[in-house]
């Protein structure tokens, strides 16, 4: 494919609001993971909670009010992103700009709250619960499109933890097929008990802090985040999406193929799509959830495609696993790495698992970074690898 310029991007996670906060936390090795109280959670685990956003939406959006849409709106207000969207709208017309948002659970926390408030006699849900505008998976994409007055193809992609990586692929396809001229892509997922207790039921939530690739890693730390980017074929931007690869494991619903065949195929497909050789990639931002199964399978896949010398790391020791937002968060980190000539270490990793052969960074590295691959994998065997690069 022809490189597709990234006109603007922004990210908000437990590391802070906006790109600078993320760059500072990466540079300083400051994790966003905390042992904090969330809602009525009783599980002993580390969480990553975004600060300062959880206030009711403005009156005109009150039907849409829920934690996930609050986080979306807060995220849109960072880094001058609204101005960049306004310019894009002026250039193409809102009708020609698509909106592709990844989320795994949208506003399901609102449903949890509504179930606690069921009428004891009738069992009915409270009047304030608006399924369409909060719980429904499309809610966040619809909300973003309406707030920004964009009317191209508008959809939510929900493929678990690959959701907001796959938005880049879908948006690029839509532009190439002529369904829109430019696109806003993003991902928003917010803390809820459904995912906390759900992942806990699968014994994937660690009581320890997330330690990707560590010999003694014991699972994920769940986080929340919002991030957005503009794909604009005519932007004079320093960074572009060079390629993407999507595959299905066809193996198991909630465990990765231990050999990493599907993951390797996604990485290879992204290289082929970009006409880039594996040796040209400077750094790989791993999916690296900190589960035994993921990190081992992903290392095998990386070694299949890249060998054992390409520097790589997971940044989930900083951000936790932001699930449906992980793709956009790590795409943003990949772009920050290119901007700053920086490759982050695998934070919280004490002793690298000796069975992991990939070149996981245990120290930060400063060097020119021109091409970065970012991996995102999800339940259902959904794999997506994105390749970003500095332009010329």
């Amino acid at each position, binding site marked *: 494919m022809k490189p597709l310029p990234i006109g603007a991007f922004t990210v908000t996670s437990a590391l802070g609001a906006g790109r600078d906060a993320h760059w500072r936390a990466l540079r300083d090795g400051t994790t966003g993971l905390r042992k904090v109280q969330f809602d009525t959670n009783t599980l002993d685990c580390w969480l990553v909670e975004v600060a300062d956003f959880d206030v009711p939406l403005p009156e005109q959006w009150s039907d849409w009010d829920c934690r996930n849409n609050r986080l979306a709106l807060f995220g849109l207000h960072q880094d001058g992103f609204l101005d960049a969207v306004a310019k894009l709208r002026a250039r193409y017309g809102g009708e020609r700009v698509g909106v592709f948002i990844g989320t795994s659970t949208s506003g399901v926390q609102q449903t949890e709250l509504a179930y606690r408030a069921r009428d004891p006699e009738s069992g009915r849900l409270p009047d304030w619960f608006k399924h369409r505008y909060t719980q429904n998976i499309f*809610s966040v994409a619809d909300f973003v499109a309406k707030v920004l007055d964009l009317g191209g193809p508008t959809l939510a992609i929900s493929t678990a933890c690959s959701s907001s990586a796959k938005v880049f692929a879908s948006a690029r396809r839509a532009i190439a097929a002529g*369904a829109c001229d430019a696109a806003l892509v993003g991902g928003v997922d917010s803390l809820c008990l459904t995912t906390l207790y759900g992942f806990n039921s699968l014994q994937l939530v660690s009581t320890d802090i997330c330690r990707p690739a560590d010999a003694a890693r014991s699972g994920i730390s769940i986080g929340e985040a919002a991030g957005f980017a503009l794909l604009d074929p005519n932007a004079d931007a320093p960074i572009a999406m060079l390629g993407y690869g999507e595959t*299905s494991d066809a193996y198991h619903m909630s465990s990765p193929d231990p050999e990493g065949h599907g993951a390797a195929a996604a990485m290879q497909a992204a290289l082929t799509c970009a006409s880039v050789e594996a040796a040209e990639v400077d750094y790989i931002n791993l999916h690296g959830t900190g589960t035994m199964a993921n990190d081992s399978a992903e290392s095998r896949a990386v070694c299949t495609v890249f060998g054992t010398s390409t520097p790589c790391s997971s940044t989930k020791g900083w951000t936790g696993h932001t699930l449906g937002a992980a793709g956009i968060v790590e795409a943003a980190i990949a772009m920050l790495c290119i901007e700053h000539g920086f490759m982050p270490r695998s934070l919280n990793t004490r002793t690298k698992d000796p069975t992991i052969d990939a070149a996981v960074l245990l120290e930060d590295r400063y060097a020119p970074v021109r091409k970065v691959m970012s991996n995102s994998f999800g339940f259902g065997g959904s794999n997506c690898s994105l390749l970003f690069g500095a332009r010329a």
Partner: protein
Amino acid sequence: MSAGERVWVEAVGITAPGLANWQAAREVLRGESAYAAADMPLPAPQLLPPNERRRATPTVRVAFQAAEDAIRASSLDPAALASVFASSDADLNIIHRISSALTQTPRFVSPTDFHNSVHNAAAGYWSIAVGARAPSTTLSAYDFSFAAGLEEASALVLADGFDTLLVAFDLPPPQPLFEKRPIACIAGVSLILTKARRPESLASLRCSHVHEASTTMAVPQLEELRHGNPALAALPLLELLALGRSGRVVLPRGSNAGLAVTVEPPS
């Protein structure tokens, strides 16, 4: 938006009350037999491996039933197809069970429920069942999910060169969610789209964005069905495909937006 490039429809599948499969639906949509409302038993799809069949939810079974109906009518290898699964709400039965469990002490969320709760559960089971390793997108666009799915599937064909299976499906939720999201009936609709015209091709499609009202169905019961499930927003398109006629329909793409689909049978 000007009309895009064409994609070819290789096969159609459906499962809905009174429209048990494409063969039956085709007769009704051609006016050769009257529509007869019928209670719809939960489908028992054939392609789920025994292990997965045991755990598969009603939602997964409806998606499979619709997909298998199209697959049977095509000589294409399902393992080679990319896929798009379009559903407004996927599995509200599970959301109901998990949300209820979270109000109890202690909170016990079933691990099987949780891994089946992901919006892409049907896509995951499908890829396992047929060995499909190609790209697969699962999306939601509320009542506009069929049009969004058709656009994504067309883009997979046109931009990435994959022959693609589109499956749209939704199911009525249990109470108390039904009051908030009254999906009236179980339904699934599928299309197989190809880049090249093939001997089996039924028609070509070209999509464009318009601000026009959606096409309605002349038969009142079919019009009721069209409103009863987001997947059945496809009915006006299926009617043209059943009739083997050229024409143009508008499918709902947003509150005030439509997706115009121009249909042309092979010349």
